[in-house]
């Protein structure tokens, strides 16, 4: 790993002796803090990013990154590197003892740029994000800078920061706390997090070995090599494999971490003869909990600092990155004075239900994997036994419900449907990708939207789409880009070059979006669908934009 990326440098405040003034400070340069900083930087906001450490995370930690997270990383300019280094997977197998119970496919259809999941060690993700943050030239990354006091006022947030060269003070307009499950910012502000602690312990072992197991998620209930407990196997990059052993509450973490003990568990699983080396070992417990609110005036809590889940379902890092995705455009628009403060309140309105959905799913998985009582164990065993022969019971078996993006349907920014739509997507949901063909060749829908409001007009086979009305969409108080999609055979020359136009090569846009000629779709800068209509009505679009973007009255009056 390039240690220059993480090099400590003396803060300019310690040279000048003056307190620094910043628009946004982010605390915590883990995946979530880095994504938040990069997103703001891409929107043109300078960011101060503080981290108490000076290296990437130790051990592989978070490893499963979902399609939605990869799409966000694409938007942040580093999806290609992450996917290139990671291992792609979409299949899972669930075993009971030594028998396969059932298998699943998390992306059974083609026509998506990104796979259902990749596995990649967290330290690689962090390295790529740090490189991207530096590339933006708007992120001032300060390692070994620990916040030791925080005061949140009505006009700003004041921080005192401790470094190897001494302490210094700064002020910022907004503070983003992405400082992890034990969030020192949260503690210093006297804020609480509450929920459920689970009485179980798990051993993570990252093992380097040559193995020809398929790149799939394998989960065992009660395997012969680890009776009465569960085991999870995942492949990562560089021939590193994650093995997760359930230990039970009575296990002693110190004893379980002893290499001899870990190695004998792994030998029991892999056989006595397979060579491997131990990369990293950790024993953990987990909680499902969250803060009551994630916004506290000028301070925003993201990721584990705001909410925590069990690891089953890959809902930790993925939901944290989705927090950053939700906040970035809102904070940027408020800082640029094009949106009102109300837009920032919608961070709570949208991300608290997302956290609750993750906590609910994660709690249910944990209740299945770690039954809390004799009767819940009985029902668990009954479901597992029936799953062999009765397909319905496979739906009850819960080894983790894997992360899917939360829909913001019903949020204050969302415009409910007035026209009838079927199909997979509803307003509030994240974009569902579709392959297209543009004027210069193949393209993906997901790459056309994001970073600004986009209206997609579906022309079908109409060779004379209402060009003036489509152009007019750009002229409102909130900047919108209009894109037109036509069916196979529709001429890309039907519209002037400055209006982006695409062919729905496989008919999947029409299918996945239930599009009929004239249908219009409004996407937010975070690629969530905000509103849709069967016909282009400029007033309806203006009203939906006004709802979704919370523009300043001044901007509205000027339009």
């Amino acid at each position: 790993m390039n240690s220059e990326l993480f090099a400590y440098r003396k803060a300019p405040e310690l040279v000048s002796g003056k307190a620094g003034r910043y628009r946004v400070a982010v605390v915590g340069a883990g995946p979530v803090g880095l994504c938040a900083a990069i997103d703001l930087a891409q929107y043109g906001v300078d960011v101060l990013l503080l981290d108490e450490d000076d290296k990437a995370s130790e051990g592989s930690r978070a490893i499963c990154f979902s399609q939605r997270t990869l799409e966000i990383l694409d938007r942040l300019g580093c999806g290609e590197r992450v996917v290139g280094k990671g291992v792609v997977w979409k299949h899972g197998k669930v075993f009971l003892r030594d028998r396969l119970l059932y298998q699943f496919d998390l992306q059974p259809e083609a026509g998506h740029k990104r796979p259902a999941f990749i596995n990649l060690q967290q330290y690689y993700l962090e390295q790529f994000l740090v490189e991207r943050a530096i590339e933006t030239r708007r992120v001032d990354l300060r390692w070994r800078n620990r916040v030791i006091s925080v005061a949140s006022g009505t006009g700003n947030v004041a921080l005192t920061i401790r470094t190897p060269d001494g302490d210094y003070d700064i002020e910022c307009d907004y503070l983003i706390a992405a400082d992890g499950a034990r969030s020192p910012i949260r503690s210093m502000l006297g804020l609480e997090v509450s929920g459920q602690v689970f009485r179980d312990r798990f051993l993570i072992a990252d093992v380097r070995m040559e193995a020809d197991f398929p790149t799939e998620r394998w989960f065992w209930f009660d395997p012969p090599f680890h009776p009465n407990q569960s085991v999870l196997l995942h492949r990562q990059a560089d021939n590193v494999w994650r093995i997760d052993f359930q230990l039970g509450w009575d296990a002693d973490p110190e004893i379980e971490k002893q290499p001899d003990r870990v190695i004998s568990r792994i030998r029991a699983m892999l056989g006595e003869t397979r060579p491997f080396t131990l990369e990293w070992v950790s024993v953990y417990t987990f909680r499902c909990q969250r803060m009551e609110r994630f916004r506290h005036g000028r301070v925003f809590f993201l990721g584990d600092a705001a909410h925590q889940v069990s690891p089953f379902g890959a809902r930790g890092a993925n939901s944290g990155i989705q927090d950053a995705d939700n906040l970035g455009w809102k904070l940027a628009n408020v800082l640029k004075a094009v949106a009102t403060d109300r837009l920032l309140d919608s961070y709570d309105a949208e991300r608290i239900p997302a956290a609750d959905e993750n906590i609910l799913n994660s709690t249910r998985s944990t209740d299945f994997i770690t039954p809390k009582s004799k009767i819940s164990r009985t029902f668990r065993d009954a479901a597992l036994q029936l799953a062999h022969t009765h397909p319905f019971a496979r739906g009850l078996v819960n080894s983790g419900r894997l992360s899917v993006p939360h829909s913001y349907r019903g949020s204050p920014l969302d415009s409910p449907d007035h026209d009838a739509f079927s199909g997979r997507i509803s307003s509030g949901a994240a974009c569902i990708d579709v392959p297209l063909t543009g004027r210069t060749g193949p393209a993906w829908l997901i790459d056309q939207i994001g970073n600004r409001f986009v209206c997609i007009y579906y022309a079908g086979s109409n060779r004379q789409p209402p060009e003036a009305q489509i152009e007019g969409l750009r002229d409102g108080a909130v900047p919108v880009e209009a894109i037109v999609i036509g069916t196979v055979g529709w001429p890309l020359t039907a519209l002037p070059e400055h209006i982006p136009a695409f062919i729905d090569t496989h008919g999947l846009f029409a299918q996945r979006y239930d599009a009929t000629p004239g249908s219009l779709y409004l996407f937010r800068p975070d690629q969530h669908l905000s509103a849709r209509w069967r016909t282009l009505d400029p007033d309806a679009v203006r009203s939906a934009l006004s709802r979704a973007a919370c523009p300043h009255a001044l901007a509205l009056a000027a339009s």
Partner: protein
Amino acid sequence: MTLITEPHLAHPDDFYEALLDAHRGFTEEQSQLLNARLILLLANHVGDLDVLRQALAAARAGIVDQEGQPQSMESGAKEST
């Protein structure tokens, strides 16, 4: 749909006998397992979560819990919807 609580079994005595027969030769633990499997099979057959919730509430009703509180029809497992 509403949970059927009026007589619906054509031959109640036959069913009751079959239910007890199903448990014959089982230990307490095996019987617990059979009951659990039976509930899951029947629940899938019913399919309607609303009806199942009514059945859960009706089954809880009247049982005195560990704190000595008798359960009412309304106190069924409703925390998650």
